[in-house]
């Protein structure tokens, strides 16, 4: 077994994801099977391989990492706030996080 019930509980906690008892067991079994399959990557010796985080080379994204940090107003703050479940313009309201 690659992944235990405790692992799934821990990971769900990291991801802030409520899972029911049934979901916990279903996902554990399915992910176990997937990880078992993923294990085939260990057939490959990758000791001298550089990890690839993205496919573009530096010359293809001339300004990917360095650009001027300029504030550009987009004028949609009111519209953005309208999408919030509990807006208090100009803020988003959330349940209390700090006890006085």
């Amino acid at each position, binding site marked *: 077994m690659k992944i235990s019930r405790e692992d799934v509980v821990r990971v769900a906690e*990291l*991801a802030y994801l*409520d899972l029911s008892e049934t979901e916990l067991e279903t*996902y554990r079994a399915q992910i176990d099977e997937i990880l078992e399959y993923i294990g085939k990557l260990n057939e490959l010796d990758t000791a001298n391989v550089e990890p690839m985080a993205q496919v573009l080379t530096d010359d293809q*994204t001339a300004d990917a990492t360095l*650009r001027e940090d300029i504030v550009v107003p987009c004028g*949609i703050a009111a519209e953005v706030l309208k999408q919030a479940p509990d807006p208090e313009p100009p803020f988003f309201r959330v349940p209390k996080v700090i006890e006085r």
Partner: protein
Amino acid sequence: MTMTWTIDGVREGLAAKKISARELTGDFYKRIETRNAELNAYLALSPQRAYAQADKMDALVAAGKPLPPLAGVPVAIKDVLSTRGITTTCGSKILEHYVPPYDATAVKRLEEAGAVILGKTNCDEFAMGSSNENSAYGPVKNPHAMDRVPGGSSGGSAAAVAAGLAVASLGTDTGGSIRQPGALCGIPAMMGSYGRVSRYGLIAFASSLDRIGPFANNVKDVAAILQTIAGRDANDSTSTTAPVPTYADEISKPVKGMRIGIPRDYFAEGLDSGVRDKIEKGIELLKKLGCEPVDIRMPHTDYAIATYYIIATAEASSNLARYDGVRYGLRVDDPTLLGMYRKTRGAGFGPEVKRRIVLGTYVLSAGYYDAYYLKGQKVRALIAQDFRDAFTKVDAIVTPTSPVPAFKLGERTSDPLQMYLADIYTVTGSLAGVPGISLPCGRSCGKLPVGLQLFGPAFGEPRILQLAHAFEQAGGASI
């Protein structure tokens, strides 16, 4: 039988005043009204915006002014692309009522080129799936066989074009989500190189893999849509500054003498015999056109699915952290902030999304990062190297798009791993960042469409469009 419109057809119709853009738009909404209840291809329609755009085009016609390249062309947009003022759900309950305050760059460019946006198309939740059965709003049906899936995740965009409910559409492809539904619905479908099209406004699934691309009824139209949406955008730092060639000038160039790689690793076990038969006939057709087939090896193909499902889920777990009930979408109340996060996400996400968040969080978590995520990134480099090596010997690579034709609704939903394994021919190119196109290549057992896939080197779009166009003109679709 409804008439099949093309971009050229719309242009000629408008210029000759045989039809107005408003009439054409109305005609497409009538088609949608007739067919969409059974197909479930559209999730939202945007008639107000569509007719306003159509009227703008009609005014240009009336004034005798030049028409932009896509004037009056009715298009559909996958529901993971932001559209100002039009509900954008990503096929998820967590964004059921979300109305974006801005347009994705690709959408904006289509509209600036004169296209008429009819509405938003159904898809697997957050583009995670290969059958469209993971949509929170019900599956899309395949227009060629109503008891079968259209493919996914861009199932609605593929079905809409295949059923004549749009002239073209935009989809997104992370591991095959444009090419595979294109294959299963029998229409050309393309993803350009990673970086070719701006992802600004595309609601992210896996940022190092996500790409936007077109579906249409022919290769020329696919090229025209790609032309419109391609090119540098200051709002996406991964959109490349490499110049965009004029595809229309390229596609009719001769293909004689082109070397096409046939990777034997793609014709191994698991390939349906009806699909194999058609792909072999497709390769014969390319030979007749003067292409030279070359046997090539892509030795890491067998590791692509494992690599893809590490990288894609890891990136997804990070990207989907933003759905927390604070700024947009669903909120499920709880007295504590963390409780609110947990309940909102538990209630708002569907099963496939939750499964991928758990898997993606796991492969990134302390103690497992090196064994899974880092290992995946290293094997990704090997897969990309397979492609670079192949393109020193050949101009393009020919493979099946999907190992099977459209399967029955419900047939594969209970076994996620089996569903993932069917992505084998598409995920390789996704990981390598190269462009790919799926073309109709006859029908398996005379009924279900088969897709032939062409890969080109990074930014080699002209070459595969050329081959695709020649293949289509030679009758590849009815092979």
